[in-house]
């Protein structure tokens, strides 16, 4: 047993994957006194984490269909605002009903939010237009929710910065080539340092796979399978801040039903399809067109706004492939797989699924599992630890 204060060296955990999940996990475990090495083949958050539209989820989108996700989101939303002050555009969000069909969803929506603990404020058409003059004037009603905008990279970098300050060894530009495994025990990884081009080994007591949509690829290195469906979606960035609040369509999930303001840009998203390999994602032209078509229903000015970028990002959705074509029906919760239990392979865990907003919560769950496994008695302290600014990660 090793508790904080004992003289045995702290357990060493190697985290593979430098997205929000890996960063939050490194932070949580570093606070619990473990020795952490994190390896990321590119820049931190260069996978899915950096690419999303930047929504700090209120959970309202899931309030009717996926209560578990909704509750997770609103809890983490509140915590993140507390531990990352000054890192969000805290303008709240609107769910806007444009058609009669949308209005049929309105009451269920408000009720669902209430049951999930998501505060709402019902607004008339005129009240909504006073808040957001660019909204479709044909809108019928709106509901205000505690959405916010995050910088998809800079918010997670605060976790990295704090973890580094607390002793975690965070190595970007290090690619895992193979896992070191012997007789169904994983004991480290073979990595290539992109800075020098040289290959070397990193040994650890436990290896955690936090690679998002690449989870299956990395798990295969240990001979195990995780049911991850890389599910990409297209997003569109337009020049000009067409709204200050996040604007959502008040309906069950669909394509192009959110516009997230970010700096002086407006991000319209998103769509959904599934792929085998998250490595190279297309940007299908018809999806981009659909962003425009759906976006104008919320904010007509989308049609005239200057194009900035169109790109794809792959969500790591849990569920076996073949279960659904579009990936939307899959649960958005996160899971930790201890492969000793699920596959008889020791020393290896996968944490996957989840949303950008729930990174801290995912890490807490996984860190609890890890500490139990390693016999470390330490409580999670991430709910109340204020994070360092992201610039600290680059402090010499």
């Amino acid at each position, binding site marked *: 047993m090793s508790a904080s204060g004992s003289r045995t060296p702290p357990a060493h955990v190697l985290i593979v994957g430098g997205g929000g999940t890996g960063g939050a996990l490194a932070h949580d475990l570093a606070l619990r006194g473990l020795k952490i090495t994190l390896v990321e083949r590119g820049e931190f958050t260069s996978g899915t984490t950096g690419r999303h539209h930047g929504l700090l989820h209120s959970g309202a989108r899931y309030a009717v269909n996926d209560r578990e996700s909704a509750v997770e989101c609103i809890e983490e939303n509140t915590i993140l605002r507390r531990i990352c002050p000054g890192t969000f555009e805290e303008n709240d969000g609107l769910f806007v009903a444009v058609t009669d069909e949308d209005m049929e969803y309105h009451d269920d929506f408000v009720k669902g939010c209430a049951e999930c603990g998501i505060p709402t404020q019902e607004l008339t058409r005129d009240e909504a237009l006073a808040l957001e003059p660019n909204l479709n004037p044909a809108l019928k009603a709106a509901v205000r929710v505690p959405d916010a905008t995050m910088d998809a990279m800079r918010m997670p970098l605060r976790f990295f910065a704090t973890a580094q300050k607390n002793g975690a060894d965070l190595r970007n530009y290090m690619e895992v080539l193979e896992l070191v495994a012997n007789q169904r025990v994983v004991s480290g990884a073979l990595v290539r340092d992109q*800075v020098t081009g040289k290959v070397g080994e990193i040994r650890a007591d436990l290896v955690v796979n936090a690679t998002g949509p690449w989870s299956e690829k990395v798990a295969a290195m240990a001979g195990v399978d995780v049911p991850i469906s890389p599910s990409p979606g297209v997003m569109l960035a337009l020049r000009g801040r067409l709204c200050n609040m996040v604007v959502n369509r008040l309906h069950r999930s669909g394509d192009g039903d959110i516009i997230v303001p*970010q700096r002086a840009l407006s991000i319209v998203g998103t769509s959904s399809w599934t792929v085998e390999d998250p490595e190279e994602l297309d940007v299908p032209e018809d999806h981009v067109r659909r962003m425009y078509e759906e976006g104008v229903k919320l904010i007509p000015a989308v049609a005239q706004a200057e194009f900035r*970028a169109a790109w794809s990002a792959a969500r790591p959705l849990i569920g076996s492939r073949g279960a659904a074509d579009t990936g939307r029906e899959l649960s958005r919760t996160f899971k930790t797989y201890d492969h000793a239990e699920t596959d008889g392979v020791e020393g290896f865990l996968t944490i996957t699924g989840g949303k950008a907003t729930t990174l801290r919560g995912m890490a807490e769950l996984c860190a609890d599992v890890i500490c139990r496994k390693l016999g470390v008695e330490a409580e999670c302290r991430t709910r109340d630890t204020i994070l360092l600014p992201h610039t600290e990660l680059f402090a010499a």
Partner: protein
Amino acid sequence: MSAQPQPSSDAGNSAGTAATASESRRLRVFRFKRGDERPHYETFDVPTIARTTVLDALRWIQIHRDRTLALRHSCLHASCGTCGLRVNGREALACVTTVRDLGREITVEPIANLQVLTDLVVDMRELFARFPEEHALVRESEFLPEADPPEGIEAFERYEDCIECGLCLSACPVVVTAERYVGPAALASAERVVEEPRGAEVANLLAWADDPDGVWRCHAIFECTVACPSNVNPAARIMSLRGTLLGRQLRAQRREERTT
């Protein structure tokens, strides 16, 4: 070029085929690993479609030709500032620079004036080291001034324009010979705080900027403003700081003259 998409509705739409017609382009890429005596350039022929960006092309090279090519990217939409490069000698964000706009052969190099770590990746710590202590990420939103913020929110806020990409520092000819010059991004960030303090100590920032290697090292060349992908206009902000400092100095002198 890559795996076929399976979009949830109409594919093979005729308006799409022109956009997806593939053409080859040649990229000449700067390569350097620590321990090399000197950098060298490698040439790759990359299939491109209308939408392909320089970053897409570089990632294609990384996936299909050379996994050891080190790249920096994150948001893919000019918001994170990580993919700054010099493309044909000009500073640009790779994720929003379309290959087809650039000619048959394209030279790709890391940004200048910062130490190269590997290939196209530079050591950004040197950029951040130049920034002053106070460096706010959020400011009041000047967009849609006719809108009322909702109850409980005093004013709409938005992220600062500066995405810490370093293109301004790369473009500045002064930094080339005056390495200690703090640079446009750092000075612009100080001016933003002076413009909208949000509780910060403005006097500290003005003192920080009032340095031979601060605002006074700038030669009003304006390359930084031209290079900036995010409308920060650092040059104008530097001039504004100088105006403020001059004003304060003159007023202080006048006060001194009156009292002596």
